């Protein structure tokens, strides 16, 4: 009995609080009471750590309450409670240990603990270890997100401890992966880190590279005499080489205080102005100082007089460079870790390069299918009939706007697209037939005038679209199942909508081939194109065939417009953006041959992506060079297109 009584006495003396209310977590809080009330980011560390490592079940709720500023201190005895607001003046206090209500208190008897954002971040880090063990998998994922955002050495141990009991396979895999990355960055032993690096060297994730890169980062340093031991030297550098140009080497010496700074032209000018006396500096009149030679002479005089620092001569620079040793030094202390990281990065770079190549090919393929889609209508009107239709791009635009209008009435996206496609075909088919009847049939023998007349229609249609729909871009929303992307690995991915456009391009190719080679219309079209009079003599009505063929080409442009509208924003310039590329696609491939158009689109798509790959930051340059390249290839090598028609089909 005696020791217990003694202990009770000590407690009463030390805390003043009533004994029965002080549970274990309250005791910890009281122990760091001053720090908690003071709330300074620099000193709060031990308090948070004490709560977090207490092992008590209430620790998490205390930290959470602390983070959201709902811990209140009772001024009368300095105890901490969870405060619940009843009204603006009254708060209900709840004990952390028992969870029971202590009572309601007026606000003026309480003090709110308000941690600043820095402290809240520290609390957040401390909370992660609890969240890692949270029964809710979503909370555990959030904790892993937090670790990825700010990887910290202190998180390694709790993360490792949490892997064992993880039940969710996906979360477990993520935990193990992040544990490997944390080990690479913050592991204690060299062997452990090297093993982790080896293990991750087949991973293409950006985070792996972000973890490895700091390990291989080097800094160029200059040393007088020999390089001191204990530094992890990557390689020695000699000044004047490509790795370390002479100027940079000397600038490094200047920056580290090992050599005097050179005096540049600007500095000379400033010094002369500063030492200007009686309209002369260094014995040279100010009026003469407009030449480099006079300035150097004046500066030399001033330097000999000691008024300005002397010029550093080339010989002095050489001497200073000779007197020092330059080396690239790893920031990472351990040579084994740095070497492992270097080789792992090299292996990853190889795999990333291969994947990027594949990704580029997919990109190019999808660009090619967009060009093909835009050009296939033109392959009929221009390729088969020989009509230059500059308003073709506007038919694409009309199709896209049809899709937009349909979506205003049919809110369900999948249904609206299914309605829009045939409607767009109908609208542009009608527009094409009207244009053929009213304008083009009068100009069949004069292609240059067809070009200009259809251009007139093109600007009229564009302005009409601007007047009706305004200049801002209109959305054409794709159905939900087209959102998202097909991800093969961290580098290769392609969005579903691009796959859909690719499939659509193939479908259109099939439709074109079927109509041209398996239907009566196709047969008559080919007959009229080859010899109009002969076809007429065989009982074909050439006017009707031309009208229908032109309508078909325009209608396909309309459907292509719906597809392109899903992928790009719908504006009145939509068609104009594609018209030059579409004509190039048809012309480069070889007029009058659908396989040529396919080849042309593929070639242009791959060429553009290929050039972009050389200079990814500058797509304008890529397009410029692509067009020039195509012009040169076209007029120099294959003026008839890649696949030229032969024999009678070639016509004139």
């Amino acid at each position, binding site marked *: 009995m005696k020791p217990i009584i003694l202990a009770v006495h000590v407690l009463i003396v030390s805390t003043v609080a009533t004994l029965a209310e002080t549970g274990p977590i309250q005791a910890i809080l009281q122990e760091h009471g001053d720090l908690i009330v003071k709330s300074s980011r620099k000193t709060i560390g031990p308090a948070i750590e004490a709560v977090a490592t207490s092992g008590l079940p209430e620790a998490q709720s205390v930290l959470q309450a602390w983070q959201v500023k709902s811990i209140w201190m009772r001024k009368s005895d300095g105890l901490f409670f969870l405060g619940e607001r009843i009204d603006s003046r009254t708060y209900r206090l709840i004990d952390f240990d028992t969870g029971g209500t202590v009572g309601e208190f007026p606000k003026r008897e309480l003090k709110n603990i308000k941690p600043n954002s820095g402290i809240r971040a520290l609390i957040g880090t401390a909370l992660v270890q609890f969240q890692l063990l949270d029964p809710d998998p979503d909370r555990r994922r959030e904790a892993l997100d937090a670790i990825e955002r700010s990887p910290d050495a202190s998180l390694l141990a709790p993360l490792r401890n949490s892997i064992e009991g993880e039940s969710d396979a996906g979360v477990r895999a993520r935990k193990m992966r992040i544990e490997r990355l944390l080990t690479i960055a913050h592991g204690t032993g060299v062997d452990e880190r090297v093993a982790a690096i080896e293990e991750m060297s087949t991973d293409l994730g950006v985070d792996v590279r972000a973890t490895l890169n700091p390990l291989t980062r080097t800094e160029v340093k200059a040393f007088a005499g020999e390089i001191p031991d204990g530094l992890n030297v990557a390689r020695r550098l000699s000044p004047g080489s490509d790795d370390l140009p002479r100027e940079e080497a000397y600038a490094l010496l200047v920056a580290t205080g090992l050599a005097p700074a050179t005096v540049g*032209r600007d500095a000379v000018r400033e010094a002369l*102005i500063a030492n200007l006396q009686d309209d002369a500096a260094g014995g040279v009149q100010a009026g003469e100082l*407009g030449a480099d030679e006079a300035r150097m002479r004046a500066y030399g005089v001033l330097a000999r007089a000691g008024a300005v620092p002397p010029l550093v001569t080339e010989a002095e620079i050489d001497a200073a460079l000779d007197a020092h040793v330059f080396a690239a030094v790893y920031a990472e202390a351990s040579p084994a870790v740095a070497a492992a990281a270097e080789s792992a990065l090299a292996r990853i770079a190889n795999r990333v390069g291969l994947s990027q190549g594949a990704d580029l090919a997919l990109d190019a393929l999808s660009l090619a299918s967009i060009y093909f889609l835009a050009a296939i209508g033109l392959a009929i009107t221009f390729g088969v009939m020989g009509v230059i239709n500059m308003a073709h791009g506007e038919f694409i635009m009309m199709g896209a706007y049809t899709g937009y209008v349909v979506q205003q009435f049919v809110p369900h996206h999948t249904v609206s697209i299914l309605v829009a496609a045939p409607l767009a075909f109908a609208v542009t088919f009608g527009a094409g037939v009207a244009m053929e009847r009213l304008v083009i049939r009068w100009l069949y023998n*004069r292609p240059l005038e067809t070009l*200009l007349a259809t251009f007139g229609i*093109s600007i009229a249609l564009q302005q009409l679209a601007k007047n009706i729909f305004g200049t801002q871009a209109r959305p054409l929303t794709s159905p939900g199942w087209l959102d998202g992307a097909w991800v093969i690995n961290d580098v290769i991915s392609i969005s579903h909508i691009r796959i859909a456009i690719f499939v659509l391009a193939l479908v259109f190719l099939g439709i074109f081939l079927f109509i041209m080679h398996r239907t009566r219309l196709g047969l008559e079209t080919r007959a009229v194109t080859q010899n109009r009079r002969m076809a007429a003599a065989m009982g074909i009505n050439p006017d009707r065939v031309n009208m229908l063929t032109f309508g078909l080409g325009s209608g396909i442009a309309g459907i292509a417009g719906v597809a392109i509208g899903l992928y790009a924003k719908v504006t009145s310039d939509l068609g104009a953006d594609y018209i*030059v590329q579409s004509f190039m696609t048809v012309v480069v491939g070889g007029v009058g041959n659908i396989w040529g158009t396919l080849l042309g689109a593929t070639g242009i798509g791959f060429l553009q992506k290929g050039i972009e790959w050389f200079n990814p930051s500058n797509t304008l*340059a890529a*397009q410029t060079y692509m067009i020039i390249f195509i012009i040169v290839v076209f007029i120099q090598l294959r003026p008839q297109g890649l696949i030229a028609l032969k024999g009678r089909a070639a016509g004139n």
Partner: protein
Amino acid sequence: MSQSVLARNPSVLVFLAILGLFTLGVTLMSEWAGSEVVSTSFVKTLGKTLCLALVAVAMDLVWGYAGILSLGHFAFFGLGGYMIGMWLMYERTHGIVVSSLAEAPIPPTEAEIVGAIGNQIFGVVGSREFPAIWAFADSLALQLLFVVLVPGLLALAFGWLAFRSRVTGVYLSILTQAMTLALALYLFQNDSGLRGNNGLSGLQNLPGLDHVPQSSVSIWFFWASAGALALGYALSAWIVSGKFGSVIRGIRDNESRVRFLGYPVEAYKLFVFTVTAMIAGIAGALYYPQAGIINPAEIAPIASIYLAVWVAIGGRGRLYGAVIGAAFVSLVSSWFTGGQAPDVNLGFYTIKWVDWWLVLLGLSFVAVTLLAPKGIGGLVDLWTGRQAPDRHGADLGPDAGSLREAEAER
């Protein structure tokens, strides 16, 4: 054949006389002469219109006479503007920099002046170094030479490649359009050395002539534009009047036959293409100092197509038609888009011409192509009594591509 060019082409004298009277009239009514009838800004508009008429004459020469529908001549026009713009901008910045550096206690060195100019000009594109193409920007004589040389050489190289490969007709049009697009895209880049999409600006201020009021500068440029148009018109009339003109009209109507007759068709076409590119460059060099600013959007392919539109509306195949077309369409266009045209109230809808002008232009262009292939210039035929032969609408030649009756002159 001993008659002079002018005697064989009375229209040239008529045109030059009208142009002279017009220039005189505008000069007398301008602010420069103390009158208030024609404002300085309108003198500039008229001067610019004369430059557009000059490039339209070039376009008519290459399209209306030689049958090459070039969609790149406005690019040559823009290149001429860029060449003179480089000198104007360099010299003007030079003046500003020198006067500001003169306030420093010691005079600047040459390198400091050039560095400060570079900083001023290229600061907007995040650079301060002079690109290599500015090497001669301080020399007016060389830049004036470039106004002719750069478009000429580009046209020569492109034409040589294209005509040699027998690229003709519509294909050539699409290729010239692609060339224009490539040039515009190239100039849009910040590292093209011509200030990207900022273009060159402040060109209306002549270096060293800050004390001269804009009313004088505008009238000088108006005279220069009128003079250039007169010279260009006379040159073009001379080119198309003799045997050379007959050959290029023959190429337009049937290229293969002219080739079979032994004429080097490619050389003729190359000559016309290059000369017209040079004329276009000169027109641009006079246009942009009056406009004050040039940027890559000016030479987008659409501009070249509009040029063809002007010539077609004015009447191609006759030089005065090109002048009429360019002047008429560009002045009417600025009248409509400038908000001066009265709105048309239809009761249920009010037609605002700012919005509907392009629709009207496009449709009237279709109408001209279909119904009046001779354009506005065709009205002159009614007056001079030129009649087309009555062949009941048939083609004039054996080929489907030959001139139709409606297009023939006599």
